[in-house]
């Protein structure tokens, strides 16, 4: 009888021990799985964050590139009267070095600096082409290309960073532009060079009634990568 009484309690104890071991094992397993999942999440989050930081860098670079400008020309009004004004112009190459300068007088009160803008796949290039005033028709203006045309290469885009091939491409583009604009020979109405090159002109200027260029102040002709042209005082 005593043996029978002892056996059920021993059996119960064994069962209880077995259940405890199983429960502990389950808890350990669940705990390990949770830790593993957390580690995987942490690694995943770190990789995702790295990608996001890459995107941020690219966006910041794109924004900076949009703000890139070149300054091929600076000018200053030397004197101004009701009917005449005089100004000095300086041209700069791709390295920022001065390559030419001149001074002239014109009839008129508003000064126009005309440039030809050539849109390209990687941005736009602008070539100052003439200076005229409100009183002088554009075709009577002063040719600017003459001052930076060095053996067919536009000095304002030349740079020590360019190789021979790039210089050759630049020369060909400049030649096409001059031909299309009729600066080679006559500017006949049907110029075959015209349709070979897509370009437009932009003559930036001051406005007598609103804002004139101040005598003695240096202004920059600023070219944006998308082809916009702006005048900024220094």
């Amino acid at each position: 009888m005593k043996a029978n009484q002892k056996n059920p309690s021993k059996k119960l104890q064994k069962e209880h021990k077995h259940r405890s071991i199983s429960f502990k094992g389950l808890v350990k397993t669940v705990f390990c799985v949770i830790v593993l999942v957390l580690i995987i999440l942490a690694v995943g989050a770190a990789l995702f964050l790295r990608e996001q930081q890459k995107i941020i860098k690219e966006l910041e670079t794109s924004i900076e590139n949009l703000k890139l400008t070149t300054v091929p020309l600076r000018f200053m009004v030397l004197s101004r009267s009701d009917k005449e004004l005089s100004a000095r112009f300086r041209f700069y190459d791709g390295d920022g070095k001065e390559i030419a300068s001149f001074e002239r007088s014109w009839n008129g009160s508003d000064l126009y600096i005309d440039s030809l803008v050539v849109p390209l796949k990687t941005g736009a290039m602008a070539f100052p082409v003439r200076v005229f005033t409100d009183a002088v028709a554009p075709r009577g203006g002063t040719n600017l290309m003459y001052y930076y045309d060095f053996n067919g290469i536009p000095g304002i885009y030349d740079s020590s960073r360019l190789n021979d091939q790039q210089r050759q491409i630049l020369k060909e583009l400049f030649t096409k532009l001059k031909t299309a604009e009729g600066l080679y020979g006559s500017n006949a109405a049907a110029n075959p060079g015209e349709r070979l090159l897509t370009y437009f002109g932009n003559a930036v200027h001051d406005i007598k009634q609103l804002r004139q260029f101040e005598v003695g102040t240096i202004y920059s002709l600023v070219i944006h990568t998308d082809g916009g042209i702006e005048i900024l005082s220094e």
Partner: protein
Amino acid sequence: MALELVKKVSQVIVFLVSTPLGYIIDGGILLLFLVFTLSRALHRERLLAQAAGTTFGAAQKLFVCIDALGRLGASLLANLPVLLIMGVISLSVVAIGETVQKVEASLEAANRIKELQAVLRNLERSLKVAEIRVLSTQNDRTTFEITFFDPANQQSIAETRTISIDGRDIYIDAIVLNFDYSEIAAGRKVNIAIPYRVFSDQVAQINGISLGGVDSKGIPYMFHRADDDIYGIAPEIYRERLKELVQLTSSDTSARPAGIVRSYYGSALHKRVSAGDRLELRVEQTGGLTLRERFPF
């Protein structure tokens, strides 16, 4: 609050196990513990030797130290499961802390990306100001139709006019106002262009054709409208814009209030045209105007 605490604890653990200074601190704590353990053992044995009236020489000291280190090692082995559990818990805390940190950083990065995308979008914007349709170029005289648009609503036509002028290279002259990049990037301002005159390669600007005339403040009359004639924009907003333009352009000091206006000048876009040409005059949000060709359908 609980998450912050977990983050802080995680940072401390990571610091202690992955940085040179952390290693130095860990080493320092271990060294202190060892010194304390050995000092205590040596002190106890010295007292026992004194009580027993025996000497406590160098050999005994060495033996005591080795014995103390041995006991320490045995104690560590005996408590290995506890140490492992503590290690796993620390790893869990670190994993939770790192995950929380990375998720927060990721949310910040997502906001930053959204901001930068908006800035890029604003700077890349190009708004149509006018459309030109060339009707004829006979006898070296160009006739064209020019349609003006409200930059705020690209579908809203402000006016259409037909103009004839001598010459084939047509100049559309406009007043241009460029705001600072910060204003454009934030979407607070858009660069403004107001066409006000047409001339050509043969016709000087002073003899050109006024586009509806300009008032005493230099603002084209075409932009002064009765309420009923203003389309696509609320009249009060339209007038507010004109007022803003007048204030900004009326004098040297007001034209650059707090550096908001970057530049203000005239810009005459031009192109040698042929009959059938269709062109768009656009104001770029990086600054200045551009001309695009729209080939006939």
